[in-house]
């Protein structure tokens, strides 16, 4: 039984997960069930080696203890955010459905007439440890968010600088737009925004005071637009215009950029330990020539 469970763990973690052969929820649960069966046996073997020569009753208690410790540890990982953060897995109480596998392991250990730990059992314990270290998590489908995206500007030379614009933040409370001005040539190149307005449906809002940040020799201006973006989304206003009047050096230009509220589905795939941004920026192009 433990060898079969270990084999299932290996095949599931290294072949089935992410292969598309089985749904993600099923491969996730197979690992949980197999792992929760194998791990108490591993604990039992370790404890049995440390306290060799005990009675059958004592071994029964050890088996039940190993199952309880495993169940408690697994429950803590799946329910307590602080513990969960230590092991880099998802907080998912539904995984507790696999806990009966601990009871099965204890039952198997109690019923199996084990003598001193055999070499096969020791090998199984080692394999369980190794697998616990290298087991992989399947890609998980986590929540995706709609994001405003600039769909109409490329890098644009204005005066002494090259200007680029993108949406850095997008959420219920509004959006944040970053304007980057890179000096096109050596020498001083001052830039400032004299007007920044976001318009979508009935909403028209000016940016609150811009935050200026220097990074890698380039000037970044961050423009926060605070508005009720949730209402805009619910009312299906998915397009907007961003008007910017930028003065770079001695040149001032007015840019009108088209924005679109993009949602690529309720969920997106995230690999283990990776947090991908919900949506990448689309290639930028001018929609309207500056006047």
């Amino acid at each position, binding site marked *: 039984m433990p060898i079969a469970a270990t084999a299932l763990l290996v095949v599931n973690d290294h072949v089935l997960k992410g292969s598309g052969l089985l749904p993600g929820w099923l491969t996730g649960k197979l690992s949980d069930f197999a792992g929760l069966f194998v791990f108490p046996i591993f604990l039992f073997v370790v404890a049995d080696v440390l306290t060799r020569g005990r009675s059958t009753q004592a071994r029964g208690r050890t088996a039940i203890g190993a199952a309880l410790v495993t169940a408690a540890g697994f429950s803590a990982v799946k329910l307590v955010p602080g513990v969960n953060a230590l092991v880099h897995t998802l907080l998912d*109480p*539904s995984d507790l459905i696999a*806990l009966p596998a601990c009871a099965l392991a204890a039952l198997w250990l109690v019923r199996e007439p084990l003598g001193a730990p055999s070499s096969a059992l020791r090998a199984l314990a080692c394999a369980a440890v190794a697998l616990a270290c290298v087991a992989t998590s399947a890609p998980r*489908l986590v929540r995706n968010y709609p*994001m405003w995206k600039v769909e109409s500007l490329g890098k644009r030379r204005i005066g002494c600088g090259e200007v680029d614009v993108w949406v*850095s933040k997008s*959420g219920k409370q*509004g959006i944040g737009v970053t304007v980057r001005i890179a000096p096109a040539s050596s020498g001083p190149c001052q830039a400032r925004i004299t007007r920044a307005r976001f318009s979508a449906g009935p909403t028209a809002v000016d940016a609150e005071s811009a935050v200026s940040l220097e990074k890698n020799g380039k000037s970044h201006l961050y423009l926060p637009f605070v508005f009720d973006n949730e209402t805009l989304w619910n009312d299906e206003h998915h397009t907007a215009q961003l008007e910017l009047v930028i003065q770079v050096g001695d040149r001032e230009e007015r840019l009108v950029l088209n924005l679109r509220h993009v949602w690529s589905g*309720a969920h997106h795939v995230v690999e283990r330990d990776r947090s991908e941004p919900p949506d990448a920026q689309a290639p930028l192009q001018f929609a309207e020539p500056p006047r």
Partner: protein
Amino acid sequence: MRAWGLLALALSAACGHTHSARNAPGNVDVRRPPERIEDETAEAPEDPGENAIVVAGGGLVGGGIGLSGERDEEFVYGVGPELSLGYGESDVSHVDDAFFIYPQRSYGANLGWTALANEGTGVGPLYGELYFGETLLWAAGGWSWDPNDRIHGPQITLTMVALYVRLSHQLDHATQITGGISVKIPHSFVWSR
């Protein structure tokens, strides 16, 4: 056997969830510049959590002890369907490939029928309960009523994952403590907070 297979198939098809696009944007602190201002991709918003309406159907199978003033303790059993409707909230949005989608906290009502029972002579007691659930633990309280025997009384049910314990008392008649397995297939209608 085929009927059981078809039933299992139908139940598994019913176990699922439906998304709504309502309130879909995440939470952002717009006034604070992004951590990496030079990064041309948008910063991921914070998860606002989600709400859900949950419909769950299934059944309870259990047994226990019946206590009556007229008779000794006796073994009692109960088998029957139960339908639940509730509203729930979760601080963290669900993972879409989770085994089942169920809110972290939920409130609602259960309607059930103990169709097979050794107590009574007619269709068996019907009951209604209000419940509160937190993670995988549910507490419910309500009233049961047997239309044939015309007995009724309060009942309390505690459920953890798929195991339940129920205390029910028929006024001027008997008290039962039963426990067993509760299997209900949920379907959640989920939208963002």
